[in-house]
């Protein structure tokens, strides 16, 4: 079963490559993509590795074709993904909505670079945070992971597949240029210790099967060719998959699409904390920025300040319930991010007027250095 997969062991590996190996172990057997810096190492390695594990790689004409091919593959029963960066991610947005509406599981890796527009192709950014959640029209929910190391490019890509196939939703691995391209130790555990989730298949006979059966929060998924009748459309559809303008159906369908994630946010959401127990100031940072913030927070502690780090590993759902504990203790918050203030909006949405919420914004191109974060910590530290 594990033939051709990366063997358990220790590797010195690039983040984007770790993402590929994680995906293959998670069961990915189809990749469609279009070249874009700084995600190219994902496609390049996929093109070599997929044939070795019996999978398929295709370079499409653009990012719209790429995501559509991925959704087609998933509806054909194959675990599939694509990888891109900002401009390509923008092109994929309409079809991410299609994935949500048709409950097609898919993994989209966005190795963020500086934006807006073509921006800084080779340099880091964290400006796609809001786009990951709100980029397509209409109401839906996605899950987005925030790796901060090659190890997490491996681990969280596997989780992305599990989450996508468990909930039948598009899941985004929201990496960044530094994390994607840096090389670091990656530990691959024995494969049997890695949890892999497969889609729930129909248990009823074909004549009783409804592909979007609303008695389930996540309906079992039949795929084309298994003998079950399926109809897949982006139009508002009933339990059988047929288009309708019925408000009752719309109500049931759209609320279920968001409930899949909202009702499971505590199961899906992940975060990590360092020295937050008695922190009077909690620094919130993610991705590569969290590693600079970690250095700053350690230095601040050395200087006698009670400062901790709260690192969301999922942007969406944002683990607000975990951060709330510190808000209830009265800790102030400082959000540091390589954008003009995106995650801080989420923090304010949950905790405005309860504690002081500070924001350190940083234009794309570099990572805010630890010294700069430390200076900001000192500036806003409660006295």
């Amino acid at each position, binding site marked *: 079963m594990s033939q051709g997969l990366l063997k358990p062991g220790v590797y010195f590996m690039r983040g984007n490559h770790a993402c590929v190996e994680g995906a293959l172990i998670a069961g990915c057997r189809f990749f469609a993509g279009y070249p874009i810096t700084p995600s190219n190492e994902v496609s390049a390695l996929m093109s070599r590795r997929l044939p070795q594990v019996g999978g398929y790689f295709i370079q499409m004409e653009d990012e719209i074709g790429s995501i559509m091919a991925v959704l087609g593959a998933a509806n054909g029963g194959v675990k599939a993904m694509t990888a891109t960066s900002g401009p390509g991610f923008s092109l994929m947005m309409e079809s991410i909505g299609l994935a949500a509406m048709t409950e097609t599981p898919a993994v989209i890796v966005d190795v963020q670079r500086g934006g807006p527009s073509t921006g800084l192709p080779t340099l880091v950014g964290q400006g796609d945070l809001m786009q990951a959640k709100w980029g397509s029209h209409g109401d839906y929910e996605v899950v987005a992971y925030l790796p901060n190391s090659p190890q997490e490019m491996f681990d969280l890509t596997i989780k992305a597949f599990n989450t996508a196939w468990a909930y039948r939703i598009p899941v985004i691995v929201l990496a960044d240029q530094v994390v994607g391209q840096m090389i*670091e130790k990656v530990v691959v555990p024995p494969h049997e210790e890695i949890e892999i989730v497969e889609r729930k298949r129909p248990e009823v006979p074909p004549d009783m099967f409804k592909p979007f059966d609303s008695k389930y929060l996540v309906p079992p998924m039949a795929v084309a060719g298994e003998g079950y009748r399926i109809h897949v459309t982006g139009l508002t559809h009933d339990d059988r998959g047929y288009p309708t303008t019925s408000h009752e159906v719309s109500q049931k369908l759209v609320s279920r699409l968001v409930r899949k994630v909202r009702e499971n946010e505590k199961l899906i959401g992940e975060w990590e904390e360092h020295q937050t127990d008695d922190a009077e100031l909690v620094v919130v940072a993610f991705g590569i920025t969290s590693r600079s913030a970690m250095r700053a927070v350690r230095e601040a502690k050395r200087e006698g300040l009670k400062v901790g780090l709260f690192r969301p590993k999922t942007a969406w759902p944002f683990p607000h319930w975990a951060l709330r504990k510190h808000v209830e203790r009265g800790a102030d918050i400082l959000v540091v991010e390589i954008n003009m203030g995106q995650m801080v909006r989420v923090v304010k949405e949950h905790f405005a007027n309860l504690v002081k919420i500070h924001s350190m914004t940083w234009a794309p191109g570099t990572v805010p250095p630890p010294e700069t974060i430390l200076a900001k910590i000192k500036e806003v530290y409660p006295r």
Partner: protein
Amino acid sequence: MGEVKLRLIGAGGHGILTLGNIIGTAATVHAGKEAVMVIGYSPAQRGGWSRADVIVSDEPIDYPIFKYPDVLVSTTQETYDLEHDNVRKGGIIIYEQDLVDPVPIEGVTQIGVPAFKTAIKVGLRLSANIVLLGFLNSMLNLVPEEALLKTLHQRIKRKYLDLNLRAYEEGKKLWEAHSRGGE
């Protein structure tokens, strides 16, 4: 050993990234240490430089990016000019002796290594980076030699392995000669 920040920089094709990769692999895979490498390039598609910033440490590494290396290895004049001012006081610069004309820098030890000449003598010009590896590791003891040799055996094509192992030995000898003659 604690933590060492290395900046390896040279022309594309000088084997800079391979050198960084070998050190990082030896440290993490074969020596139980931590290492991280961040790569940079000049904008040019041809004739540009490439840079590998490598941290080798006994402890987990929080932040992989640094401005001021402890040790700079530079194989061209252009990259030497670009980086020599950034080496921290008390740090070391190793430069390609036949390609770099160094300037005096107070508080920084500078050592010229004839990496290319030595590699050509060995019979494989491309092994200049491995000459530097032998020199660098003998001087700094970044990782146990056994770990480096294991990495070389795994990474280098059989056809070129012997020549590279010789290049490594020659690099070690250059350090030994330097440390005998120098101080």
